[in-house]
């Protein structure tokens, strides 16, 4: 036993250094406290009812749905990177695909946790399967998200099995290997499921023909928001993966993924962003000038005061147009801070998009004699979101500490 190393060093990935166990446990305890706070909120919500939240009859959707949509979009790095790596065989991506899978796993399981809180009767959640309404976009979401969640678990398991000590067991070794062989299949199923439910999540809003703020026409049974959600997810997903990776590098002080791979991810996301931006702007233009007028409404009527002001609309658009341009221009893209900033702006824009569709779409009074009301999430909603953050940070910390998530790590940190 080497006493210069942390006591759990035997479990570390081959050739990698990690902080002391004490320090690690300290970090985990901080997360644990946040986790318990969220757990308290969750218990209250499950025990007393959703009245414990800040939602009301005008805002049946709030922070939680915004959160779910945002993390599911940002977690899309998993399926998209996976598809590029395993189906299109872009080999460099193997250096980040593990992280993308873990992030995807965390985002989806986190969203599932919030959904359990968000539905009023969690004990009846299986009705979604047993009595499905095939016309509902939400049914599709329920099916695909749960199925994809299983896929993500299957993608996450091999990484756990690759732990140095576990891999010593031949059975697990073989199992992990088998998983890897089947990974392209998982990636394929994942890509299919994920594309559909990302789209369905967008479709959920686009089909609401009673809500002029949200309603969109579309192609066949899918409103335009269906495609916009897919595009926004595939552009922001890889970017979010890079951002998380960079954050982990800053926190651990170790290089984990090479700049080139990140650039590649940025390029991939940026390319998708171009498509998204073009369609998004077209959609907004058509909506503002044509669709609303057909319903007797004006663009101005969609906004109110500061909290539901136009700044959100302009910011959402600016934050995809600027990154699109910057990521297109090579010299700019190569400036690290600018690169990261652009990724961040894109992720912000996607989050704003999910927020305005969820909250502002409901706030906009459709009946002329109705009024604008405001919604603010209360502590219980925030706490349960932080529960997911804490859970994600804990799992990510464990995965980083004990599994070979980053194939390049050893090489990049050679002294």
């Amino acid at each position, binding site marked *: 036993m080497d006493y210069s190393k942390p006591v759990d060093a035997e479990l570390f990935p081959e050739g990698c250094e990690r902080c002391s166990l004490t320090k690690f446990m300290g970090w985990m305890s901080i997360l644990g406290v946040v986790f318990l706070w969220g757990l308290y909120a969750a218990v209250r919500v499950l025990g007393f009812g959703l009245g414990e939240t800040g939602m009301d009859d005008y805002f049946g959707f709030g922070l939680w749905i915004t959160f779910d949509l945002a993390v599911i979009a940002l977690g899309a790095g998993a399926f998209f990177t996976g598809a590029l790596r395993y189906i299109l065989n872009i080999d460099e991506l193997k250096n980040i695909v593990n992280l993308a899978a873990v992030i995807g796993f965390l985002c989806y399981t986190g969203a599932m946790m919030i959904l359990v809180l968000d539905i009023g*009767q969690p*004990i*009846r959640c*299986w*009705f979604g399967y047993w009595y499905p309404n095939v016309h509902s976009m939400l049914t599709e979401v329920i099916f695909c998200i749960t199925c994809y969640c299983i896929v993500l678990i299957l993608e996450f398991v091999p990484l756990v099995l690759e732990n140095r000590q576990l891999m010593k067991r031949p059975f697990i070794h073989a199992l992990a290997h088998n998983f890897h062989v089947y990974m392209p299949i998982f990636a394929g199923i994942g890509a299919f499921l994920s594309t559909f439910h990302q789209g369905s999540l967008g479709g959920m809003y686009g089909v609401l023909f009673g809500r002029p703020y949200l309603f969109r026409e579309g192609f066949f049974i899918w409103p335009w928001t269906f495609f916009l959600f897919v595009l926004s997810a595939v552009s922001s997903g890889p970017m979010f993966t890079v951002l998380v990776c960079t954050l982990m590098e800053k926190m651990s002080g170790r290089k984990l993924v090479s700049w080139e791979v990140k650039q590649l991810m940025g390029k991939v996301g940026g390319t998708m962003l171009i498509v998204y931006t073009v369609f998004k702007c077209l959609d907004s233009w058509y909506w503002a000038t044509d669709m609303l007028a057909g319903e007797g409404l004006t663009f101005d009527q969609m906004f109110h005061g500061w909290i539901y002001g136009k700044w959100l609309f302009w910011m959402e658009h600016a934050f995809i147009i600027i990154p699109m341009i910057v990521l297109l221009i090579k010299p700019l893209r190569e400036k690290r801070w600018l690169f990261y900033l652009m990724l961040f702006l894109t992720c912000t824009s996607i989050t704003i998009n999910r927020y305005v569709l969820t909250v502002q779409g409901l706030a906009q009074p459709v009946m002329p004699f109705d009024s604008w009301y405001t919604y603010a999430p209360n502590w219980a909603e925030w706490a349960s979101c932080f529960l997911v953050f804490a859970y994600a940070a804990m799992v990510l910390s464990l995965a980083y500490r004990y599994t070979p998530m980053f194939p390049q790590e050893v090489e990049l940190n050679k002294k």
Partner: protein
Amino acid sequence: MDRRGFLKFAAGGTVGLVASPIIWNTLYDAVYWTQNWGWIPRLKKGESQYVPTVSKLCPSGTGFLVRTVSGVPVRTIGDKNNPVTHGAMTALAAAEAELRVSPARLKTPLRRSPDGAYIAISWAEAEKLLKEKTQQAGASVAAVSGDPTSSINEVLSSILNQQGSSDFYFMPDEEQPAAVAWEAMGGQGRLGYDMEGSDCILAVGAPVLESWGVVAANRSLFNRTHPVGGEAGQKLIYAGAVQNNTAAGADLWLPMKSGTDMALLLGMAHLVIKAGKNGFAAGLGNFASFAAAYTPEKVSAITGVPQERLEAAAKALVEAKKPLVIAGSALGSGGSAGSVMAAIALNMLLGSVNREGGLLDLPYPVSVVAHATDYRDTMRKRFVDYTQNVAAGKTKAPALFFVYAANPVYSLPADSGVKETIKKSGYSVAVASFMSETCEECDLVLPAALGMEAFDDVQTPYGSGRVTYALARPVAKPFADARSAGELFIALAQELKLELGVKDMPELLYKHAYALGAPFRAMMDEGAVHTARVTLPASPLFYNWEAIRAAASARGEEGDLQVAPVVVLAMGTPQTAIPPFATKVVTDYQLKGRYSVAQMNGATAAKLKVNAGDLVKLVAGNNVQITVVAAIFEGILPDTVSLVAGLGHTAFDEFSKGKGSNVLALTSVRREPGTGLPVWGLAGVKAARA
């Protein structure tokens, strides 16, 4: 067994469980559990019955069918066969089955212990106490009743009279000033209004579609004269400071400053005289020349009503075949006699007296209980004069004070002296159905049955154009330990060996029906209601212009803003407070959380520099200060704030307590010039942002 064996055993077990129904059935059972949680009340089953009777909680005696399931009332539904209210309901009457079991309902007799807390006692003990206290009090006993339509009053007044006391009062209501006015103008019977026969009604200050008169009947009339999607068969003009529910139904709204009713009526008189309507009676010349001073310009300046609307209203009256003018107060009590006199004069000018569709001279209800005070004599007595005198020490406080079906502590201004009277009286007894503010002041609280739980009656309410008589019949057992108030008083009289001439409530009701020629059997068995067009020989009316002039000299209240109270029946009455099911009917422009909402128009708000949603302090002339939330509503006069009445309860239950402020707290008792009548309902306030 080794580990591998165990794993296989577990695998087999899993397969077996999945292949057996228990997991899947339990999934279902768990859902059934969520669908039938034990802590959520289950429905009762049984036979439904619909029994016609009348409401005793709703001031208009709404006729309804009480639906019972296995004998328990669950709903009240308008009774289409009721010849008075024709199936029309009020928000209050619609809530009566729920009010019957509301948390504020009194369950047992309560006696106040020396430390101030209430102790539940038995009826035997309560009756013993009641007998002792009445015997001890002798002639020093007073009583007030808040239910003028009930013949239970006769039993109570008979007890008082036989004890040697004449201090039996009605709570101040809309009729008392009207009776004064009618008499002053030469009326000999009871003032009645044949709204049904009229083709154009001008209601000045009287919210005829919400709280004035026999509201349910007024509404059914409005219904019949305004066919769905068709032409209105009757024009309704409403003058008031706020575009309230009545204004919403009216064909024309005259925005009239609070307290300027007389000026408006005199201005209308001037205009109709000019148009050639001058029904002759003694004093016409003097009245006409007095009214001539009320030119449209002047009236418009005083009342705030735009001149063209005054003229439009006058034109409508002149052109109508059977116009009818009604004056009343927004609050339903504390109104002025002067405005009713002016309204009578206007009706006289229009020829609308003692004819179909006009003012009628109805007979007053008569007493059938031995030694009881007649309705008319009780109506003439002024409760607030009495309580103020007792409070000031000018009159000896009674040794025993009864409060029956009334909540004067809440429903009268703070300086009315009621609280002091109760405090000073030797012993105070409240007979009520709900734990009101007044009950909380009394020494003994006796739970009274509701109309649907006991025998009671509704004699012609004020505002009617006919003589009507309806019985309230016991449809259900009294809630908890409540008892019929009528039977309680009859039993008390019997204990005291007093003579009533009736042995129980059915006999009392029978005697009343007999006196009116009403079909008692059908009323008792089927809930039939008696109505009759009975009018007295036409009274020799005259234009008592001097009394009108005196009353017109009343000064307005001082303050930057006038308070215009709005009464809505959904808020209940002072006796019931807010029914549990009405809290959602209370709007966000009436109440916001703990605060009353003061509505004002944009110009007023700009002047006060307040925005919608701001907290505002209102300070009244009597230095009472309340905090309200401002709301902008353009259907209200400048420099006026509207507050809804019925808030600010400190008793009752969680549905009423601690919500907003009592608008009556802002008012003070004044004396009307000429008649000397105690009046209130107007309040001037100063406002500042809180």
